[in-house]
């Protein structure tokens, strides 16, 4: 199976999963209330995040054929994403300013004059399209990393908090060891050791970020372990596994959601720094910004590349940060009481 088919499949799974979660949330009125509260407090942020998610999905659905590939023979055999089909992929030869008719340095006429909203990059690629495509990479970084980090944190944190004693000692030792190493250095070391790919970057980010949530999960589990309903369940003959799965885990879910949203922006920002160090993920905004370091020093400066990536990154982070606040307020019983 080819990668674009896998990608389509993942989109399908995500859509089904999303629908399932939506149904589950709407039936469960604690969650429903939270969603409503978030929507009421920050409709803008929710909408912006939705737009990013939509872009990411559009860029993940691809199929072959039905496009004019010009001189590019290989492209006829490659899948083109829905996003690329929608926004076209008009190629130029090199830099051109936003909406320009001529090349930026060479002043030769463009093939598609006036059609590049954010201009073109060094190889003549459309920056607007690249900016839109960055959404997928950012969500991939945030999503994939959380997908690795959060289960990892739960896997270690819950038993440590629930069973205590030796297990707790071991987990706590692992956590303090990992937490003692500077995040960036650990990230770099892992990527240098494991090679360079999106998965490795996400894995490295996950390894460096799970500890924080693990600590929270452990503490919360310790608290939940002493809750009366856990005692009651024990008297009701529930096994340890049942108690963890039925009584502990669901009561950690709000923390999972809060952590997910709060972690997200940090992950995307870290990737930008990694990109500067040469270990970024292909097609990310971080990479575009890192590239722009040289472009800005050109004279006259090429600013639209960093501008596009900056706006894309900034918009997502701003929305996610606001959303994070709202989600925390809606779900965290502590802040809920105060507000």
């Amino acid at each position, binding site marked *: 199976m080819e990668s674009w088919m896998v990608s389509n499949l993942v989109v399908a799974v995500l859509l089904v999963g999303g629908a399932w979660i939506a149904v589950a949330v709407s039936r469960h009125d604690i969650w429903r209330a939270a969603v409503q509260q978030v929507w009421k407090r920050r409709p803008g942020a929710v909408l912006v995040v939705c737009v990013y998610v939509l872009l990411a999905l559009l860029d993940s659905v691809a199929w072959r054929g039905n496009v004019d590939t010009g001189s590019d023979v290989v492209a006829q055999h490659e899948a083109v994403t829905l996003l690329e089909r929608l926004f076209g992929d008009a190629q130029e030869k090199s830099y051109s300013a936003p909406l320009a008719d001529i090349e930026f340095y060479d002043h030769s006429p463009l093939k598609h004059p006036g059609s590049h909203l954010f201009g073109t990059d060094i190889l003549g690629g459309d920056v607007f399209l690249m900016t839109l495509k960055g959404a997928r990479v950012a969500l991939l970084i945030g999503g994939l990393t959380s997908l690795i980090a959060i289960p990892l944190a739960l896997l270690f944190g819950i038993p440590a908090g629930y069973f205590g004693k030796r297990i707790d000692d071991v987990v706590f030792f692992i956590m303090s060891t990992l937490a003692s190493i500077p995040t960036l250095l650990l990230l770099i070391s892992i990527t240098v050791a494991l090679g360079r790919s999106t998965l490795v970057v996400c894995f490295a980010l996950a390894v460096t970020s799970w500890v924080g949530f693990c600590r929270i999960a452990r503490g919360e589990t310790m608290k939940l372990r002493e809750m009366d*309903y856990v005692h*009651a369940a024990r008297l*009701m*003959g529930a*096994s340890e596994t049942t108690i963890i799965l039925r009584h502990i885990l*669901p009561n950690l*879910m709000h923390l999972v959601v809060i952590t997910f949203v709060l972690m997200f922006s940090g992950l995307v920002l870290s990737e930008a720094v990694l990109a500067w160090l040469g270990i970024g993920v292909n097609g990310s905004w971080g990479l575009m910004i890192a590239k722009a370091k040289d472009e800005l020093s050109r004279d006259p400066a090429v600013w639209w590349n960093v501008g596009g990536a900056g706006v894309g990154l900034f918009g997502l982070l701003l929305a996610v940060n606001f959303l994070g606040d709202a989600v925390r307020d809606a779900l965290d019983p502590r802040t809920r009481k105060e507000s």
Partner: protein
Amino acid sequence: MSGDSSQTAPGEPLLRVEGLRTWFPIKSGVFQRTVGHVRAVDGVDITVHAGETVALVGESGCGKTTAGRSLLRLIEPREGVVFFEGRDLLKLPKKELRDARRTAQMVFQDPMSSLNPRLRVRDIIAEGMDSFGIGRDKAERTERVAELLERVQLKADHMSRYPHEFSGGQRQRIGIARALSVEPRLLVLDEAVSALDVSIQAQVLNLLSELQRDLALAYLFITHDLSVVRYLAKRVCVMYLGQVVEEASAEELFRDPQHPYTRGLLSAIPSIDPDRRGLDVSFEGDVPSSANPPSGCRFHTRCPQVMDRCRVEEPQLIQLSGRQSRCFLSEEGSCGVSLG
């Protein structure tokens, strides 16, 4: 009812607790060595007969809740004997314990924390039936949940709701329904009504006595509220600093308390201050630490009738006619002398 071999022999009490001790270690030093213990429960004896209500009374911090949880092994006690339906719960391995304590259930104090907020009422109540295999299938269990809800004077259609949609009293009823779902013979009621309003308290207490009548339940009623005890219990054990200091039938206890501590407790009800309802006793001084209990009689630091002997010698439970007291005064048979 299941469990045939574990049936209580005739004449034998349903629950017999002897010398129950629950100590929590105090750790200190570089290597976290245990340097001492908090003696939360330090030699408690309780007997509960089938269908009977026994109250365990004491100030907060005296170890009564720990005692209640220890005898069901929700907290592991250090030593002692807990004979329940003919078996010593403390000696059972984990697997057998699960079945053995099915018929001993608990209703908890805090209606907020005793129900899992993420589960529907139906699932909360049916959990025990699921794990003990009571009822043939899901439908039958749901039906039983409906019955139980009605039994505790809630509506059957409440079962699809979540705990946070109920008031405190309603939640406590759900807690009772849950306890009943596995057909217990003993209910440990751990401050089961203390968190409720007075009017609702009465309703729940009524419900409890009704249930006792219908189902022949035995209650171990743990509370700090003597007024509740008078209403419900047949026998009363008074605890102070991890020990039972007096045990008597409710009637006798209220009429003629033997131990100075009990006397103090009784003089405190009814209180005018709604926040201090119950046992806030006007004794001198603070409650001593149970990590380092006073020598001799544990109550001597606060006892209005303290004697020199109390400071050195530890009094034992003294058998009086059908009651016991842990005080040298009772030894001399001079009860009530020094009241005036």
